[in-house]
């Protein structure tokens, strides 16, 4: 039997590229997971600091200053690409999405490459004391996340440019920008911890 009264939803839009979309929320929740993980890693960094007299331990060089700072600026700048792509996705502007995603990749990939370069002449590994373990742990996990999202962005770019830019893809581009903002934002405290930590809470060797 049909209830006597009803609400007709046929006129509602068949999709939404905004924070009203369930996918937007799902993605937000997954950033909670990542945020907790990184918060625990930061706590671990300072906890381990407490149990060592010299920080970084003897024989381990201080982290470099210039390259990581440039990489940070590039990463922050790359958010503009995500923002443009996401705004373009909202108004269904295929070229805007392509430009924005390309700008994002164009700035972010050099940032990751610079990061890798700055590691090249480090004289310690994750096997060099707990300091090395926690420093590399943070760097590895954040870089893995960056890499995964960049790969995803690249795939999105290819799909939007060559295959289709329907509502699903537009929502994908919009939601991808949330992840990217998060990964860049969380990098700021991680960057401060890893690169400034030895200066801020270090003790003379």
């Amino acid at each position, binding site marked *: *039997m*049909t*209830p*006597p*009264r*009803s*609400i*007709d*939803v*046929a*006129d*509602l*839009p*068949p*999709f*939404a590229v905004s924070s*009203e*979309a*369930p*996918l937007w*929320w*799902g993605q937000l*929740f*997954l950033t*909670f*997971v*990542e945020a*907790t*993980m990184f918060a*625990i*890693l930061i706590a*671990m960094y300072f*906890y*381990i600091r407490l*149990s*060592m007299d010299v920080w970084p*331990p003897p024989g381990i060089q201080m982290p470099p200053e210039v390259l990581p700072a440039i990489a940070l600026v590039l990463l922050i700048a790359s958010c503009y690409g995500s923002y443009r792509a996401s705004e373009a996705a909202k108004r269904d502007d295929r070229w805007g999405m392509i430009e924005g995603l390309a700008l994002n990749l164009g700035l972010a990939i050099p940032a990751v490459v610079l990061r890798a370069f700055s590691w090249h002449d480090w004289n310690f590994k*994750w*096997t060099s*004391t*707990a*300091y*090395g*373990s*926690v420093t*590399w*742990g943070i760097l590895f*996990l954040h870089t893995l996340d960056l890499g995964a999202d960049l*790969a*995803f962005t690249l*795939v999105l770019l290819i*799909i939007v440019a060559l*295959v*289709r830019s*329907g*509502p*699903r*893809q537009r929502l*994908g581009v919009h939601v991808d920008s949330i992840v990217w903002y998060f990964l860049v934002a969380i990098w700021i405290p991680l960057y401060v911890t890893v690169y400034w930590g030895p200066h801020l809470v270090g003790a003379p060797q």
Partner: protein
Amino acid sequence: MTAATTPSIDLDRERASLERAWANGRGLLAWLSVTTHQAIGMRYIVTAFLFLLAGGVEALLMRLQLARPDNTLLTADKYNQIFTVHGSTMMFLFAVPMMEGMGVYLVPLMLGTRNVAFPRLNAFGYWMYVIGGLFLYWGLFTNTGPDVGWFAYTPLSGPQFSPGKRVDVWAQMITFTEISAMCVAAELAATILKMRAPGMSLNRIPLFCWGMLVQSFMVLFAMPAVMVASNIFLLTDRTIGTHFSNPAEGGDPLLYQHVFWFFGHPEVYIIFIPALGMVSAIVDTNTRRAIFGYPAMVLSLVATAFIGFGLWVHHMFATGLPQIGEAYFTAASMMIAIASGVQIFCWLATMWTGRIRWTAAMHFVAGFVFIFVLGGLTGVMLAAIPLDLQVHDTFFVVAHFHYVLIGGALFPLFGGFHHWFGKFTGRLIDERLGKLTFWVLFIGFNLTFFPMHILGLRGMTRRIYTYPSEMQWGGANALATAGALVILLGGILFLVNVFTSRRNGEMAGPNPWDSGTLEWATASPPQNFNFLLLPAVTGRYPLWTSFKERIAVTGLRNDRREVLVTTLMDAEPHHRYVLPRSSIWPFVTAVLITIGLIGSVFQFQWYYPGIALATIGFLGWFWPRAQEAEP
């Protein structure tokens, strides 16, 4: 939200069209590709139940070993593996997935929608869980079962004291089950916040859904900690030589305990909060009145979740932490009793002022109140540091947490099974046998676990595989073992009831208990699309309003898997949303990720092909399909 007179709708055509759009197909490939929530939810429930049986067999083996002094049924090594796998099974492979399964099955029905928000993620999470569980049991059957306790403390679990692969199997099983739990948490939270029936504002959500929402957030914030502990700490220390828990190189085993219990304590509430939701659902139906103190109930759930994150150090009172810190955790541990107490009083008030119908499910609720209150009392005792130091790592603690977990989660869960059995299967479970099951389980439970309080006070430590007769622990242990056999009898009664009722039980019909919430507004068992016309609601108990006041949603397309998305607070209709069809890719992706995860247990480098393979899986998953009709 303004409702108009319903236009005339050809319901038969509507049904035929929905059946086509939501059909799952036949054959193995279709079976592996299923993404409908009833099927996945039921798979979770059945799989978790099988793991409960496995964990129960392990418990029985332990009880038989301890039945008398100097027993030689199990060797020390086997005993270690069995208690570790018992604990890990019950926590990671039974309790959490079972609650998730109940949520996956019931939440979309209670909210009045057709599926969870991310059906493919749902399927993926299930496959990860199954694979992780099988991996642990593969370990146990090849003598590679973990043997360091379900929390795998370093340094015992570290590379120095636990060579071989036993601990790695445990650590990677955690990864599988946590990925699964996080998938369900994200999808249920998004479903509850964004896919409720029009009119179901936040203050009208059924309490079980509130429980699942709070639990989902707890999972999102707690599970990363155990992944850090098991994967970053343990596995890397063991496989690539990091020093997180090696004091000689600046690491700290205590740090592992902190990180583990930052997860481990909320875990208890992750199991327990959905159970509270089940209790509320059973109590309001069977007292035939609205739950007393709905806002207080919701606030207590939320408060429990917050305080639950501030208790972890009470597992570590014996580690010599600074006393001021310990005092804080004592206070927090006592404070959480307030939040739980508020709920108990609300249920009692509901029962007091309602007309109680003593169904089997209600029996389990009453048993829950009794057992859980006892477990709560020993919890307040253990929060006091001097007492905790005396009984730390004794059977007193074992008794306490079985009272809390079996009383607080298993009894409500069995209540839930009896309550929703008709919805799940279409036939009612036999009430008389159900009540008998309750009494057998209740007596068996107390017979098993009450003596453990006394054993603990008399100094019997946990995790010993035998004891000399001079300790005079034999009597109480024999009693506990007898109790375990009674529990076994209860389990058999339940299984017999399930199988006979499923075949010969009375037909349930849509709403056998005259409940008020939406899962009872549809056929039993529900069809893949749940509701022919999605409902809209005007109160907390939509089925307790007269039919004249009911409102339906019309205008959704029924030739594809379309649902309605509503606003976060007031559940105003916002837009329509097409859910994906069946897909094999969640299964394929889970298998491809497994290659990396299991390979890395033996050689860390397996992660690299694992990542590449997982990428292929996700590409297949995300690639646009021609068949997915665009709006």
